[in-house]
Protein backbone atom coordinates (compact mmCIF):
# COMPACT_ATOMS: atom_id res chain seq x y z
CA UNK A 1 0.00 0.00 0.00
CA UNK A 2 1.32 3.47 -0.80
CA UNK A 3 1.81 6.03 1.93
CA UNK A 4 -0.66 8.89 2.29
CA UNK A 5 0.76 11.94 4.01
CA UNK A 6 -1.29 13.66 6.67
CA UNK A 7 -0.26 17.07 8.00
CA UNK A 8 -0.82 17.02 11.77
CA UNK A 9 -2.82 20.02 12.97
CA UNK A 10 -1.93 20.80 16.58
CA UNK A 11 -1.27 23.55 19.10
CA UNK A 12 2.02 22.17 20.42
CA UNK A 13 0.28 20.35 23.25
CA UNK A 14 -2.66 18.61 21.62
CA UNK A 15 -3.44 17.05 18.28
CA UNK A 16 -6.68 18.49 16.93
CA UNK A 17 -9.57 16.15 16.24
CA UNK A 18 -9.46 17.18 12.59
CA UNK A 19 -6.11 15.37 12.30
CA UNK A 20 -7.77 12.09 13.32
CA UNK A 21 -10.40 12.75 10.65
CA UNK A 22 -7.62 13.07 8.07
CA UNK A 23 -6.03 9.82 9.26
CA UNK A 24 -9.38 8.03 8.85
CA UNK A 25 -9.77 9.45 5.33
CA UNK A 26 -6.14 8.61 4.47
CA UNK A 27 -6.70 4.93 5.27
CA UNK A 28 -9.09 4.74 2.31
CA UNK A 29 -6.13 5.39 0.00
CA UNK A 30 -3.17 3.75 1.75
CA UNK A 31 -1.02 3.80 4.87
CA UNK A 32 -1.30 7.10 6.74
CA UNK A 33 2.05 8.79 7.40
CA UNK A 34 1.67 11.70 9.80
CA UNK A 35 3.87 14.77 9.38
CA UNK A 36 4.47 16.72 12.59
CA UNK A 37 5.99 20.19 12.24
CA UNK A 38 6.95 21.75 15.56
CA UNK A 39 9.57 22.43 18.17
CA UNK A 40 11.85 19.53 19.17
CA UNK A 41 9.99 16.83 21.08
CA UNK A 42 6.56 17.49 19.58
CA UNK A 43 6.37 14.37 17.40
CA UNK A 44 7.42 12.16 20.30
CA UNK A 45 4.53 13.48 22.38
CA UNK A 46 2.02 12.84 19.59
CA UNK A 47 3.30 9.50 18.31
CA UNK A 48 1.15 7.26 20.49
CA UNK A 49 -2.16 9.03 19.76
CA UNK A 50 -1.36 9.23 16.03
CA UNK A 51 -0.57 5.50 15.94
CA UNK A 52 -3.81 4.79 17.76
CA UNK A 53 -5.60 6.46 14.85
CA UNK A 54 -3.82 4.49 12.17
CA UNK A 55 -0.55 6.34 11.45
CA UNK A 56 1.97 3.71 10.38
CA UNK A 57 4.75 6.28 10.31
CA UNK A 58 5.31 9.61 11.98
CA UNK A 59 7.62 12.15 10.34
CA UNK A 60 9.22 14.55 12.79
CA UNK A 61 10.09 17.89 11.19
CA UNK A 62 11.33 19.75 14.21
CA UNK A 63 13.31 22.90 14.80
CA UNK A 64 13.35 25.82 17.20
CA UNK A 65 12.36 28.08 14.31
CA UNK A 66 9.42 26.01 13.13
CA UNK A 67 6.84 27.98 15.06
CA UNK A 68 8.46 31.37 14.53
CA UNK A 69 7.77 31.74 10.82
CA UNK A 70 4.51 31.63 8.93
CA UNK A 71 3.83 28.84 6.42
CA UNK A 72 7.29 28.09 5.00
CA UNK A 73 8.51 25.53 7.62
CA UNK A 74 5.32 23.52 7.09
CA UNK A 75 5.64 23.62 3.31
CA UNK A 76 9.34 22.66 3.54
CA UNK A 77 8.44 19.70 5.76
CA UNK A 78 5.69 18.49 3.44
CA UNK A 79 7.92 18.81 0.41
CA UNK A 80 10.67 16.76 2.11
CA UNK A 81 8.14 14.13 3.16
CA UNK A 82 6.75 13.89 -0.37
CA UNK A 83 10.24 13.38 -1.79
CA UNK A 84 10.86 10.68 0.83
CA UNK A 85 7.57 8.79 0.66
CA UNK A 86 6.29 9.32 -2.91
CA UNK A 87 2.80 9.26 -1.44
CA UNK A 88 -0.51 8.55 -3.17
CA UNK A 89 -1.81 11.87 -1.82
CA UNK A 90 -1.20 14.60 0.74
CA UNK A 91 -4.04 15.44 3.11
CA UNK A 92 -4.32 18.65 5.14
CA UNK A 93 -7.15 20.31 7.05
CA UNK A 94 -8.95 23.03 5.11
CA UNK A 95 -8.25 25.61 7.81
CA UNK A 96 -6.72 28.97 6.92
CA UNK A 97 -3.19 27.68 7.54
CA UNK A 98 -3.94 24.34 5.88
CA UNK A 99 -5.25 25.89 2.66
CA UNK A 100 -2.19 28.09 2.35
CA UNK A 101 0.24 25.25 3.03
CA UNK A 102 -1.62 23.02 0.56
CA UNK A 103 -1.52 25.72 -2.12
CA UNK A 104 2.18 26.39 -1.71
CA UNK A 105 3.00 22.67 -1.69
CA UNK A 106 0.96 22.13 -4.86
CA UNK A 107 2.94 24.95 -6.48
CA UNK A 108 6.26 23.30 -5.58
CA UNK A 109 5.05 19.96 -6.91
CA UNK A 110 3.14 21.46 -9.85
CA UNK A 111 0.35 19.19 -8.66
CA UNK A 112 -3.43 19.22 -8.61
CA UNK A 113 -5.03 20.84 -5.58
CA UNK A 114 -8.57 20.30 -4.30
CA UNK A 115 -9.65 22.52 -1.44
CA UNK A 116 -12.48 22.12 1.06
CA UNK A 117 -13.43 18.53 0.32
CA UNK A 118 -16.23 17.02 2.41
CA UNK A 119 -15.51 13.46 1.33
CA UNK A 120 -12.86 11.31 -0.31
CA UNK A 121 -13.33 7.85 -1.80
CA UNK A 122 -10.88 5.01 -2.27
CA UNK A 123 -10.18 6.00 -5.88
CA UNK A 124 -9.12 9.47 -4.77
CA UNK A 125 -12.28 11.20 -5.99
CA UNK A 126 -13.16 14.13 -3.78
CA UNK A 127 -16.60 15.60 -3.02
CA UNK A 128 -16.99 19.36 -2.62
CA UNK A 129 -20.05 21.46 -1.93
CA UNK A 130 -19.79 24.70 -3.83
CA UNK A 131 -21.61 28.01 -4.18
CA UNK A 132 -22.88 28.06 -0.66
CA UNK A 133 -24.37 24.60 -0.86
CA UNK A 134 -26.11 24.81 -4.21
CA UNK A 135 -23.99 22.18 -6.00
CA UNK A 136 -22.28 18.92 -5.11
CA UNK A 137 -19.19 18.46 -7.25
CA UNK A 138 -17.00 15.35 -7.48
CA UNK A 139 -13.48 15.93 -8.78
CA UNK A 140 -10.15 14.21 -9.11
CA UNK A 141 -6.57 15.25 -9.56
CA UNK A 142 -5.18 14.55 -13.02
CA UNK A 143 -1.64 15.87 -12.66
CA UNK A 144 0.97 15.24 -9.97
CA UNK A 145 0.61 14.09 -6.37
CA UNK A 146 -2.92 15.04 -5.25
CA UNK A 147 -2.91 17.71 -2.54
CA UNK A 148 -6.27 17.58 -0.80
CA UNK A 149 -7.62 19.90 1.89
CA UNK A 150 -10.49 18.33 3.83
CA UNK A 151 -13.09 20.38 5.65
CA UNK A 152 -12.86 19.73 9.41
CA UNK A 153 -15.86 17.81 10.68
CA UNK A 154 -16.63 16.17 7.35
CA UNK A 155 -15.19 12.69 8.04
CA UNK A 156 -15.66 10.63 11.22
CA UNK A 157 -12.43 9.98 13.14
CA UNK A 158 -11.76 6.29 13.87
CA UNK A 159 -9.45 4.46 16.22
CA UNK A 160 -7.29 1.94 14.37
CA UNK A 161 -4.28 1.05 16.52
CA UNK A 162 -1.04 0.29 14.68
CA UNK A 163 2.66 0.60 15.48
CA UNK A 164 4.21 3.73 14.09
CA UNK A 165 7.77 4.06 12.81
CA UNK A 166 9.33 7.43 13.55
CA UNK A 167 11.24 9.17 10.77
CA UNK A 168 13.14 12.43 10.89
CA UNK A 169 13.09 15.23 8.34
CA UNK A 170 15.87 17.82 8.48
CA UNK A 171 14.18 21.19 8.03
CA UNK A 172 16.29 23.72 6.13
CA UNK A 173 16.90 26.99 7.95
CA UNK A 174 14.37 29.69 7.20
CA UNK A 175 15.22 32.51 4.79
CA UNK A 176 14.03 35.63 6.65
CA UNK A 177 13.73 37.54 3.36
CA UNK A 178 11.17 35.04 2.07
CA UNK A 179 9.19 34.31 5.24
CA UNK A 180 7.21 36.41 7.67
CA UNK A 181 8.24 36.18 11.31
CA UNK A 182 5.55 35.60 13.92
CA UNK A 183 6.44 37.98 16.73
CA UNK A 184 3.38 37.44 18.92
CA UNK A 185 0.46 35.05 19.08
CA UNK A 186 -2.88 35.23 20.79
CA UNK A 187 -4.82 32.02 20.47
CA UNK A 188 -8.55 31.71 20.13
CA UNK A 189 -10.84 33.36 22.62
CA UNK A 190 -13.15 30.36 22.68
CA UNK A 191 -12.02 29.41 26.20
CA UNK A 192 -13.40 26.03 27.15
CA UNK A 193 -15.79 25.82 24.21
CA UNK A 194 -15.03 23.56 21.26
CA UNK A 195 -13.63 25.22 18.15
CA UNK A 196 -16.30 26.32 15.68
CA UNK A 197 -15.25 23.87 13.00
CA UNK A 198 -14.89 20.96 15.42
CA UNK A 199 -18.14 21.40 17.32
CA UNK A 200 -21.07 19.02 16.87
CA UNK A 201 -23.41 21.82 17.97
CA UNK A 202 -23.17 25.48 16.94
CA UNK A 203 -25.38 28.20 18.39
CA UNK A 204 -25.15 31.46 16.45
CA UNK A 205 -26.47 34.91 17.18
CA UNK A 206 -27.32 37.66 14.74
CA UNK A 207 -28.24 41.32 14.80
CA UNK A 208 -31.42 40.29 16.60
CA UNK A 209 -29.34 39.58 19.71
CA UNK A 210 -29.11 43.35 20.01
CA UNK A 211 -25.70 43.78 21.66
CA UNK A 212 -22.59 42.24 23.17
CA UNK A 213 -24.45 41.65 26.39
CA UNK A 214 -27.26 39.85 24.61
CA UNK A 215 -24.72 37.27 23.45
CA UNK A 216 -24.74 35.82 26.98
CA UNK A 217 -28.04 34.20 26.03
CA UNK A 218 -26.34 32.63 23.01
CA UNK A 219 -23.32 31.51 25.05
CA UNK A 220 -25.48 29.99 27.78
CA UNK A 221 -27.38 27.88 25.27
CA UNK A 222 -24.13 26.83 23.57
CA UNK A 223 -22.64 25.82 26.93
CA UNK A 224 -25.72 23.83 27.92
CA UNK A 225 -25.39 21.91 24.63
CA UNK A 226 -21.62 21.63 24.83
CA UNK A 227 -21.39 23.57 21.57
CA UNK A 228 -19.53 26.44 19.96
CA UNK A 229 -20.78 30.01 19.52
CA UNK A 230 -21.07 31.58 16.08
CA UNK A 231 -22.23 34.95 14.82
CA UNK A 232 -23.62 36.52 11.68
CA UNK A 233 -21.65 39.20 9.93
CA UNK A 234 -24.13 41.85 10.99
CA UNK A 235 -23.51 40.88 14.64
CA UNK A 236 -19.74 40.93 14.08
CA UNK A 237 -19.83 44.26 12.23
CA UNK A 238 -21.88 45.78 15.03
CA UNK A 239 -19.20 44.68 17.50
CA UNK A 240 -21.40 42.21 19.37
CA UNK A 241 -18.97 39.32 18.89
CA UNK A 242 -15.39 38.86 17.58
CA UNK A 243 -14.77 38.32 13.88
CA UNK A 244 -13.20 34.88 14.23
CA UNK A 245 -16.63 33.49 15.10
CA UNK A 246 -18.33 34.71 11.95
CA UNK A 247 -20.21 32.02 10.06
CA UNK A 248 -20.89 32.42 6.36
CA UNK A 249 -19.39 33.12 3.04
CA UNK A 250 -16.62 35.35 4.33
CA UNK A 251 -16.47 33.63 7.69
CA UNK A 252 -16.33 29.98 8.56
CA UNK A 253 -18.21 27.12 6.95
CA UNK A 254 -19.62 24.73 9.52
CA UNK A 255 -21.49 21.42 9.19
CA UNK A 256 -22.47 20.45 12.73
CA UNK A 257 -25.11 17.92 13.75
CA UNK A 258 -27.17 20.81 15.12
CA UNK A 259 -27.11 24.50 14.14
CA UNK A 260 -29.26 26.94 16.10
CA UNK A 261 -29.73 30.43 14.60
CA UNK A 262 -30.93 33.08 17.06
CA UNK A 263 -32.03 36.43 15.63
CA UNK A 264 -30.51 35.73 12.22
CA UNK A 265 -32.52 36.62 9.12
CA UNK A 266 -30.87 34.04 6.84
CA UNK A 267 -29.18 36.11 4.14
CA UNK A 268 -27.73 34.01 1.32
CA UNK A 269 -24.18 34.79 2.50
CA UNK A 270 -24.95 33.46 5.96
CA UNK A 271 -26.64 30.34 4.60
CA UNK A 272 -23.49 29.68 2.54
CA UNK A 273 -21.65 28.86 5.74
CA UNK A 274 -24.18 26.67 7.53
CA UNK A 275 -26.70 25.09 5.23
CA UNK A 276 -24.88 21.77 5.16
CA UNK A 277 -25.62 21.38 8.91
CA UNK A 278 -27.54 18.17 9.66
CA UNK A 279 -30.36 19.79 11.65
CA UNK A 280 -31.16 23.51 11.62
CA UNK A 281 -33.23 25.25 14.28
CA UNK A 282 -34.11 28.95 13.98
CA UNK A 283 -35.67 31.44 16.36
CA UNK A 284 -36.76 34.73 14.81
CA UNK A 285 -39.47 37.29 15.54
CA UNK A 286 -40.24 37.80 11.90
CA UNK A 287 -42.35 34.98 10.40
CA UNK A 288 -41.15 36.07 6.92
CA UNK A 289 -37.44 35.65 7.74
CA UNK A 290 -35.75 33.60 4.97
CA UNK A 291 -34.02 31.39 7.56
CA UNK A 292 -37.39 29.66 8.06
CA UNK A 293 -37.19 28.49 4.45
CA UNK A 294 -34.56 25.92 5.39
CA UNK A 295 -34.99 25.43 9.14
CA UNK A 296 -35.97 21.91 10.17
CA UNK A 297 -37.63 23.48 13.16
CA UNK A 298 -38.52 27.17 13.06
CA UNK A 299 -39.79 29.10 16.05
CA UNK A 300 -41.48 32.43 15.46
CA UNK A 301 -40.81 34.26 18.69
CA UNK A 302 -38.53 36.42 20.81
CA UNK A 303 -35.14 34.79 21.25
CA UNK A 304 -34.85 36.28 24.74
CA UNK A 305 -37.90 34.26 25.78
CA UNK A 306 -37.29 31.07 23.78
CA UNK A 307 -33.52 30.55 24.17
CA UNK A 308 -33.35 30.75 28.00
CA UNK A 309 -36.26 28.33 28.25
CA UNK A 310 -34.47 25.95 25.91
CA UNK A 311 -31.21 26.35 27.88
CA UNK A 312 -33.02 25.53 31.09
CA UNK A 313 -34.69 22.46 29.58
CA UNK A 314 -31.42 21.15 28.12
CA UNK A 315 -29.57 21.73 31.42
CA UNK A 316 -32.33 19.92 33.33
CA UNK A 317 -32.18 17.01 30.92
CA UNK A 318 -28.38 16.82 31.26
CA UNK A 319 -28.68 16.90 35.07
CA UNK A 320 -31.05 13.91 35.11
CA UNK A 321 -28.75 11.74 33.00
Amino acid at each position, binding site marked *: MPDVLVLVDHDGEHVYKSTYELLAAARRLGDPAAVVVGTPGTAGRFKESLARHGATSVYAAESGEAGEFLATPTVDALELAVRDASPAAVLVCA*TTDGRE*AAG*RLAARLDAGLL*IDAVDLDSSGVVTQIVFGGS*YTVRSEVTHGTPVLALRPGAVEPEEHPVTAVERTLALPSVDPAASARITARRT*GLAGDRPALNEATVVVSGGRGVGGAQGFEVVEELADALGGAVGASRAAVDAGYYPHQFQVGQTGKSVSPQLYIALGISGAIQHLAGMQTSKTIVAVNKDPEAPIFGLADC*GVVGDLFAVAPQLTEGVAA*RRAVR
Partner: protein
Amino acid sequence: MNIVVLVKQVPDTGAERTLSQTDHTLDREDADLVLDEINERAAEAALILKETTDAHITVVSMGPDSAREAIRKVLAMGADRGIHICDDRLRGADVLTTAKVLAAAVRTVEDVDLVLAGNTTTDGQASAVPAIVAELLGLPQLTHVRQLTVDAGQVSAERETDNGEATLQAPLPALVSITEKINEPRYPSFKGIMAAKKKPVHTPDLDDLFPDADDSGLLVTRTRVVEAVPRPPRAAGIRITDDGSAGRHLVEYLIARKLV
Protein backbone atom coordinates in the same frame (compact mmCIF):
# COMPACT_ATOMS: atom_id res chain seq x y z
CA MET B 1 7.20 52.63 -3.48
CA ASN B 2 5.71 50.27 -6.07
CA ILE B 3 2.51 48.53 -5.07
CA VAL B 4 0.67 45.87 -7.04
CA VAL B 5 -2.93 45.10 -6.16
CA LEU B 6 -4.47 41.82 -7.32
CA VAL B 7 -8.18 42.14 -7.98
CA LYS B 8 -10.81 39.80 -9.27
CA GLN B 9 -14.22 40.30 -10.74
CA VAL B 10 -16.84 38.02 -9.22
CA PRO B 11 -20.55 37.38 -9.65
CA ASP B 12 -22.62 39.50 -7.30
CA THR B 13 -23.16 37.23 -4.30
CA GLY B 14 -26.74 38.34 -3.87
CA ALA B 15 -27.58 36.64 -7.15
CA GLU B 16 -28.02 32.95 -7.83
CA ARG B 17 -24.97 31.22 -9.28
CA THR B 18 -25.08 28.33 -11.70
CA LEU B 19 -22.54 26.02 -13.24
CA SER B 20 -22.45 25.66 -17.00
CA GLN B 21 -23.88 22.32 -18.11
CA THR B 22 -21.19 21.80 -20.72
CA ASP B 23 -17.91 22.31 -18.86
CA HIS B 24 -18.85 22.79 -15.20
CA THR B 25 -17.31 26.24 -15.03
CA LEU B 26 -19.08 29.19 -13.53
CA ASP B 27 -21.84 30.45 -15.80
CA ARG B 28 -20.91 34.08 -16.17
CA GLU B 29 -23.33 34.94 -18.88
CA ASP B 30 -26.28 36.04 -16.84
CA ALA B 31 -24.44 36.75 -13.61
CA ASP B 32 -24.07 40.34 -12.42
CA LEU B 33 -20.32 40.90 -12.24
CA VAL B 34 -18.72 43.18 -9.68
CA LEU B 35 -15.27 43.98 -8.30
CA ASP B 36 -14.89 41.63 -5.32
CA GLU B 37 -15.80 43.51 -2.18
CA ILE B 38 -12.65 42.45 -0.33
CA ASN B 39 -10.51 43.57 -3.26
CA GLU B 40 -11.99 47.06 -2.96
CA ARG B 41 -10.50 47.04 0.50
CA ALA B 42 -7.13 45.81 -0.79
CA ALA B 43 -7.19 48.74 -3.21
CA GLU B 44 -8.10 51.08 -0.35
CA ALA B 45 -5.13 49.79 1.67
CA ALA B 46 -2.85 50.64 -1.27
CA LEU B 47 -4.41 54.09 -1.64
CA ILE B 48 -3.91 54.81 2.06
CA LEU B 49 -0.21 54.01 1.64
CA LYS B 50 -0.11 56.25 -1.42
CA GLU B 51 -1.33 59.15 0.71
CA THR B 52 1.67 58.93 3.02
CA THR B 53 4.44 57.69 0.72
CA ASP B 54 4.77 58.47 -2.93
CA ALA B 55 3.53 55.12 -4.12
CA HIS B 56 2.76 54.01 -7.64
CA ILE B 57 -0.12 51.54 -7.80
CA THR B 58 -0.56 48.88 -10.48
CA VAL B 59 -3.81 46.90 -10.56
CA VAL B 60 -3.60 43.36 -11.92
CA SER B 61 -6.53 41.18 -12.88
CA MET B 62 -6.82 37.91 -14.73
CA GLY B 63 -10.22 37.33 -16.24
CA PRO B 64 -12.44 37.72 -19.30
CA ASP B 65 -13.00 41.02 -21.15
CA SER B 66 -15.43 42.16 -18.49
CA ALA B 67 -12.66 42.11 -15.86
CA ARG B 68 -11.48 45.40 -17.34
CA GLU B 69 -14.43 46.99 -15.51
CA ALA B 70 -13.00 45.84 -12.21
CA ILE B 71 -9.62 47.33 -13.16
CA ARG B 72 -11.28 50.61 -14.20
CA LYS B 73 -13.02 50.84 -10.87
CA VAL B 74 -9.73 50.62 -8.98
CA LEU B 75 -8.18 53.15 -11.37
CA ALA B 76 -11.14 55.41 -10.63
CA MET B 77 -10.48 54.99 -6.92
CA GLY B 78 -6.96 56.32 -7.56
CA ALA B 79 -4.64 53.58 -8.79
CA ASP B 80 -2.19 54.53 -11.55
CA ARG B 81 -2.27 51.81 -14.16
CA GLY B 82 -3.66 48.38 -14.93
CA ILE B 83 -2.54 45.01 -16.23
CA HIS B 84 -5.25 42.77 -17.63
CA ILE B 85 -4.44 39.18 -18.53
CA CYS B 86 -7.20 37.96 -20.77
CA ASP B 87 -6.88 34.82 -22.87
CA ASP B 88 -9.42 32.19 -23.85
CA ARG B 89 -6.92 29.50 -22.93
CA LEU B 90 -7.27 30.54 -19.29
CA ARG B 91 -10.93 29.63 -19.13
CA GLY B 92 -11.43 27.30 -16.18
CA ALA B 93 -7.89 27.89 -14.88
CA ASP B 94 -7.21 26.23 -11.53
CA VAL B 95 -5.90 27.97 -8.44
CA LEU B 96 -2.30 27.14 -9.30
CA THR B 97 -2.46 28.40 -12.88
CA THR B 98 -4.22 31.56 -11.70
CA ALA B 99 -1.41 32.16 -9.21
CA LYS B 100 1.26 31.44 -11.87
CA VAL B 101 -0.27 33.94 -14.26
CA LEU B 102 -0.59 36.58 -11.55
CA ALA B 103 2.99 36.00 -10.39
CA ALA B 104 4.22 36.33 -13.99
CA ALA B 105 2.28 39.58 -14.36
CA VAL B 106 3.76 40.94 -11.12
CA ARG B 107 7.24 40.12 -12.44
CA THR B 108 6.64 42.49 -15.37
CA VAL B 109 6.38 45.38 -12.90
CA GLU B 110 9.79 46.74 -11.96
CA ASP B 111 10.99 46.93 -8.34
CA VAL B 112 7.81 45.82 -6.66
CA ASP B 113 7.81 46.55 -2.92
CA LEU B 114 4.40 45.31 -1.95
CA VAL B 115 1.81 42.97 -3.47
CA LEU B 116 -1.66 43.39 -2.00
CA ALA B 117 -4.54 40.91 -2.38
CA GLY B 118 -7.79 39.95 -0.73
CA ASN B 119 -7.67 37.01 1.69
CA THR B 120 -10.43 35.18 -0.13
CA THR B 121 -12.76 35.65 -3.04
CA THR B 122 -16.47 35.45 -2.63
CA ASP B 123 -16.83 33.04 -5.55
CA GLY B 124 -14.04 30.47 -5.51
CA GLN B 125 -13.29 30.58 -1.82
CA ALA B 126 -9.94 28.87 -2.24
CA SER B 127 -8.18 31.36 0.01
CA ALA B 128 -4.94 30.09 -1.42
CA VAL B 129 -4.00 32.30 -4.39
CA PRO B 130 -2.10 34.94 -2.36
CA ALA B 131 0.00 32.33 -0.51
CA ILE B 132 0.87 30.64 -3.80
CA VAL B 133 1.80 33.95 -5.44
CA ALA B 134 4.13 34.59 -2.46
CA GLU B 135 5.60 31.11 -2.94
CA LEU B 136 6.22 31.67 -6.65
CA LEU B 137 7.75 35.11 -6.16
CA GLY B 138 9.79 34.08 -3.10
CA LEU B 139 8.16 36.81 -1.01
CA PRO B 140 7.26 36.63 2.66
CA GLN B 141 3.50 36.10 3.00
CA LEU B 142 1.59 38.21 5.51
CA THR B 143 -1.88 36.92 4.86
CA HIS B 144 -5.34 37.40 6.40
CA VAL B 145 -4.38 40.70 7.99
CA ARG B 146 -6.75 43.20 9.50
CA GLN B 147 -4.11 45.81 10.28
CA LEU B 148 -1.09 46.83 8.26
CA THR B 149 1.88 49.14 8.83
CA VAL B 150 4.63 49.76 6.29
CA ASP B 151 7.61 51.67 7.62
CA ALA B 152 11.35 51.83 6.94
CA GLY B 153 11.39 48.85 4.62
CA GLN B 154 9.46 46.67 7.06
CA VAL B 155 5.87 45.44 7.04
CA SER B 156 4.09 44.57 10.24
CA ALA B 157 0.63 43.17 10.30
CA GLU B 158 -2.04 41.70 12.54
CA ARG B 159 -3.20 38.34 11.21
CA GLU B 160 -6.60 37.02 12.24
CA THR B 161 -7.67 33.46 11.43
CA ASP B 162 -9.56 30.48 12.85
CA ASN B 163 -6.39 29.79 14.84
CA GLY B 164 -6.53 33.10 16.68
CA GLU B 165 -4.41 36.19 16.14
CA ALA B 166 -0.75 36.73 15.38
CA THR B 167 1.56 39.67 14.82
CA LEU B 168 3.70 39.27 11.70
CA GLN B 169 6.81 41.08 10.57
CA ALA B 170 8.83 40.94 7.37
CA PRO B 171 11.16 43.02 5.23
CA LEU B 172 9.97 44.47 1.91
CA PRO B 173 9.33 43.28 -0.73
CA ALA B 174 6.42 41.28 0.67
CA LEU B 175 2.95 40.02 -0.14
CA VAL B 176 0.01 40.99 2.04
CA SER B 177 -3.56 39.70 1.87
CA ILE B 178 -6.17 41.66 3.78
CA THR B 179 -9.48 40.73 5.38
CA GLU B 180 -12.76 42.57 5.10
CA LYS B 181 -12.07 44.13 8.52
CA ILE B 182 -9.14 46.27 7.39
CA ASN B 183 -10.89 49.43 6.21
CA GLU B 184 -13.90 50.97 4.50
CA PRO B 185 -13.21 51.47 0.80
CA ARG B 186 -13.74 54.91 -0.73
CA TYR B 187 -16.17 55.53 -3.58
CA PRO B 188 -14.64 56.70 -6.83
CA SER B 189 -15.26 60.41 -7.33
CA PHE B 190 -16.60 61.76 -10.61
CA LYS B 191 -13.16 63.25 -11.24
CA GLY B 192 -11.61 59.86 -10.51
CA ILE B 193 -13.92 58.13 -12.96
CA MET B 194 -13.05 60.60 -15.70
CA ALA B 195 -9.31 60.36 -14.97
CA ALA B 196 -9.46 56.55 -15.03
CA LYS B 197 -10.49 56.61 -18.69
CA LYS B 198 -7.06 57.99 -19.60
CA LYS B 199 -5.00 55.69 -17.40
CA PRO B 200 -3.11 52.93 -19.22
CA VAL B 201 -4.22 49.29 -19.03
CA HIS B 202 -1.69 46.85 -20.48
CA THR B 203 -2.81 43.52 -21.87
CA PRO B 204 0.28 41.33 -21.96
CA ASP B 205 0.24 38.29 -24.19
CA LEU B 206 0.11 35.01 -22.34
CA ASP B 207 2.92 33.62 -24.51
CA ASP B 208 5.13 36.55 -23.54
CA LEU B 209 4.44 35.90 -19.86
CA PHE B 210 5.45 32.26 -20.29
CA PRO B 211 8.11 32.24 -23.01
CA ASP B 212 9.42 28.86 -21.85
CA ALA B 213 6.14 26.97 -21.96
CA ASP B 214 6.52 23.99 -24.28
CA ASP B 215 4.37 23.22 -27.32
CA SER B 216 1.60 21.65 -25.32
CA GLY B 217 1.28 25.13 -23.84
CA LEU B 218 0.33 26.18 -20.41
CA LEU B 219 -1.30 23.64 -18.14
CA VAL B 220 -4.67 25.21 -17.36
CA THR B 221 -5.93 22.79 -14.79
CA ARG B 222 -4.57 19.80 -12.88
CA THR B 223 -7.95 18.53 -11.77
CA ARG B 224 -11.06 17.24 -13.49
CA VAL B 225 -14.70 17.50 -12.50
CA VAL B 226 -16.19 14.01 -12.60
CA GLU B 227 -19.71 15.08 -11.82
CA ALA B 228 -21.63 18.20 -10.76
CA VAL B 229 -25.16 17.91 -9.42
CA PRO B 230 -27.39 20.71 -8.15
CA ARG B 231 -28.31 20.05 -4.54
CA PRO B 232 -32.01 19.95 -3.80
CA PRO B 233 -32.90 23.04 -1.80
CA ARG B 234 -33.45 22.26 1.85
CA ALA B 235 -37.12 22.02 2.65
CA ALA B 236 -38.62 23.87 5.58
CA GLY B 237 -39.61 21.57 8.43
CA ILE B 238 -42.00 22.20 11.26
CA ARG B 239 -42.96 25.69 12.44
CA ILE B 240 -43.94 26.73 15.95
CA THR B 241 -45.26 30.13 16.97
CA ASP B 242 -44.21 30.91 20.51
CA ASP B 243 -47.07 31.00 22.98
CA GLY B 244 -44.76 30.94 25.98
CA SER B 245 -43.80 27.30 25.69
CA ALA B 246 -41.81 27.11 22.43
CA GLY B 247 -38.55 26.67 24.34
CA ARG B 248 -39.96 23.56 26.02
CA HIS B 249 -41.22 22.24 22.67
CA LEU B 250 -37.73 22.70 21.29
CA VAL B 251 -36.29 20.61 24.12
CA GLU B 252 -38.72 17.81 23.14
CA TYR B 253 -37.78 18.21 19.50
CA LEU B 254 -34.05 17.90 20.25
CA ILE B 255 -34.62 14.90 22.53
CA ALA B 256 -36.71 13.16 19.87
CA ARG B 257 -33.87 13.66 17.39
CA LYS B 258 -31.28 12.46 19.94
CA LEU B 259 -29.53 15.81 19.79
CA VAL B 260 -29.45 16.21 23.57
